[in-house]
């Protein structure tokens, strides 16, 4: 019954036999041990499981592992570059964009997708982009600021480069 899939996760190539009904999030957590991606619901509403698949934000509970065959996946564990935090990771820390941390990986991944599409979002655009990610701790106030921090940092880095 098992199907073989080949995926690249955070730059590393994997090949595994998986049960066809295994969700991508389960594969990441249970098979690869990448527990930074969280499960907060069973209706694809909370966004805690958000990752990047071929550069696009995807709720990994809405996708089967077999559907990721041949894809390039990035999770929160792959966001820092050789120990240097991604500007979003830094932003969440600087602006206190997290409390319990459970929603944080999903928030960061969704925001990464946003900033890729729209490097200079307004507060309104940030709030709209994050409406598929629940946070029960922060009231979103500082999450918005965290994303703004990252946007600014990225644009400054680009100016320098």
């Amino acid at each position: 019954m098992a199907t073989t899939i080949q995926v690249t996760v955070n730059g590393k190539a994997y090949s595994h036999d998986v049960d066809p009904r295994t969700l991508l999030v389960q594969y990441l957590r249970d098979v690869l041990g990448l527990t930074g991606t969280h499960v907060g619901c069973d209706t694809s509403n909370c966004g805690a499981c958000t990752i990047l698949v071929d550069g696009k934000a995807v709720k990994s509970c809405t996708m089967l592992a077999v559907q990721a065959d041949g894809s390039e996946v990035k999770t929160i564990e792959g966001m820092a570059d050789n120990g240097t935090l991604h500007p979003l990771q830094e932003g969440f820390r600087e602006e206190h964009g997290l409390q319990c941390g459970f929603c944080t990986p999903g928030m960061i991944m969704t925001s990464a997708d946003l900033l890729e599409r729209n490097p200079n979002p307004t507060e309104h655009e940030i709030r709209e982009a994050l409406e598929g990610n629940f946070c029960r701790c922060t009231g979103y106030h500082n999450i918005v600021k965290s994303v703004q921090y990252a946007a600014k940092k990225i644009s400054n880095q680009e100016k320098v480069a």
Partner: protein
Amino acid sequence: MTNYIGKAVKRVEDKRFITGKGRYTDDIILPGMTHAYIVRSPYAHARISSVDTSAAEAIEGVVKVFTGKDIAESGINGIPTGWQVNFKNGDTMKEPPHPLLVSDKARYMGDAVAIVIAESREIARDAGDMVEVEYEELPAVADAKKATEAGAPLVHDDAPNNMCFDWELGNPKAEVDEAMSKAHHITTLEFVNQRVIPNAIEPRSAIGHFEESSDKYTLYTTSQNPHLTRLLMCAFVLGIPEHKVRVVAPDVGGGFGSKIFHYAEEALVIWCSQRLKRPVKWTADRSEAFMTDAHGRDHVTKAEMGFDKDGKIMGLRVKTYANLGAYLSTFAPCVPTWLHGTLMQGLYTTPKINVDVTGVFTHTVMVDAYRGAGRPEATYLLERLMDTAALEMKIDPAELRRKNFIPAFDGVKQAGYQTQVALQYDSGNYQGVLKRALEMVGYEKFREEQKAARKDGKLLGIGFSTYIEACGIAPSAVVGALGARAGLYEVGQVRVQPTGKVSVYTGSHSHGQGHETTFAQVVADRLGIPMDDVEIIHGDSESVAFGMGTYGSRSLAVGGSAIVKSLDKIIEKGAKIAAHKLEASEEDLEFAEGKWTVKGTDKSVGFGDVALTAYVPHNYPAGLEPGLDFSSFYDPANFTYPFGAHIAIVEVDQDTGKVSLKRFIAVDDVGNVINPMIVDGQIHGGLAQGIGQALLEGAVYDENGQLINGSYMDYTMPRADDLPSFEIDRQVTPCPHNPLGVKGAGEAGTIGSTPAVVNAVMDALSPFGIKNLEMPLTPERVWRAMNS
């Protein structure tokens, strides 16, 4: 620089969370671990005629299925409650058994009937579907008030009228009636403070691990309160020796009250692990969490406030039916009573108060503390009365409050304020927070805008809430007298290592509050050492001596104070060692910046030096024990009383009924502040939850006891685009009775915000003559009101 108190230090714990290295319960995998799935009743009330597990057990990969019968036969007890509230006539409250798995009857939708243990989560779930349970559905009741009426279906046969207790507090009813009869004006409100679901984003999870070789048990659990869970589970449920049990609450993804309590699943995984000699993991999925996490609020209330002709409050009379759910959860009886009735004084000089509460069983999941716990319900009632009375009496709502505020007192030069409802407030300056909030909002200007907008058919509204809460829970002797079955002190141990590095063990628990940062700031500041030299350890009963956990905004006020007590002992003993080393007398030394200095000289010895000497005591004061390690219990002298003023500005869309929250201003006084960034974050999060209750959230049980919005598709959680950025400020009135002068900030936002928002909507709707609408103020509800 070792000055940390009052600084917005970035959080120490963030590194692991932003890199995906947090370690939550469901992340833990143990060798040989099995997975549990719990078969739950789809009915709110049903007799269980039979449970057939044979088909499930035949599935490959199923290890075992246990049923309510197995639990009953094993002789273990059910889940206890930690608080006793008696009937007015002195009779003990009704305390029906709450078995880990039911065998005779299901009493709420989600009541646990059987547990399947299998090699994988998927197999367990598949097999769960194969457990055949025959139910005979019975009539159910979900509404607290209806449950007390004649002929209502009974949840427990031995609780007539579904009453758990009836209770009152304050002045005798006759005195209050008398005061009210003389009132010039009485404002009356009847409303439901609706049931809300805490919804921490991390679902509950528990792993039980019994090790036969050592006869030891480990429970990993999503708990705010690991030591209390251990105590309740060992002593009251399973009857296993406490010293053989380790409870670990690792990183926990939010709690908001819902993870305080000892839940049946925790005891179940331990019990199953002991039987199967393998680790057993259970993790709720969200639908299960909706059905089985303890909910909050759910009061049916009639409240009346009497005023003299100048708007001075003469009396307050309150009757509440509080829904407790089908069984008594850990703190359930105290929430609508001692955490609710005691807040009826609010910020006002009300001379006569009577509050009467009936605790009611219904065929719904347990109701217990949810962020604020009782205090939001009290504040909602008072602050809705104030704005409604202002409207009725045509007095400005800010002015009405000012007329009635208790005058400022610091609790040192001026005594604390004795309320009519048992509490004595510690310190307060209520005019101050309102004044600041009015400045921030630009009150007069807003009223003009509002007038102009009305002419253009735009419905703007402003709403106030000036609240107080009782936090820093709580003096043990006081709560003991009120029915608590536990003490509510906290434990803090400071272990100075030989190299001068410091490990701190706290019985308090962080599930987002940032203890690893705030507590380290306190320790580093007091000891005059870098924060990097301090590690805060919490959440593991094996490393932390004891603890009462985190809830009731108690972590810093009680847990922090316990640490300070130990720090004082460290500094005191350190001085003895330093004096010996400096060949000076202790009295001649002063301790600052991490060293003991002989006053008026440059002779000094550093903290690290003293630490090393304590562990290598070669040249050492005679008669002094080696080591530098102290543990303290801190039992607070009183509750703490944070307060504040919240103002909401809303716009109601006349065509759709949609309420948009335009601005939210919060000025809170939580006493001294150790880390303003973290305190602000606590306020933000609290506001979102309070605003959520006003506008969006509400658990809906139908008349058959079916939870009909038990998923994120149906239950409206506040999203990023539902909320504005908040405008917040602070006033500082130190707490006079704890060493840090702190009051607690975790619940303030939630307690204050809900009535401010509802008041704002009522203000916007006042041209329609609408005085009261039930929460949540959905577009439909508002539109219907405007169009009827």
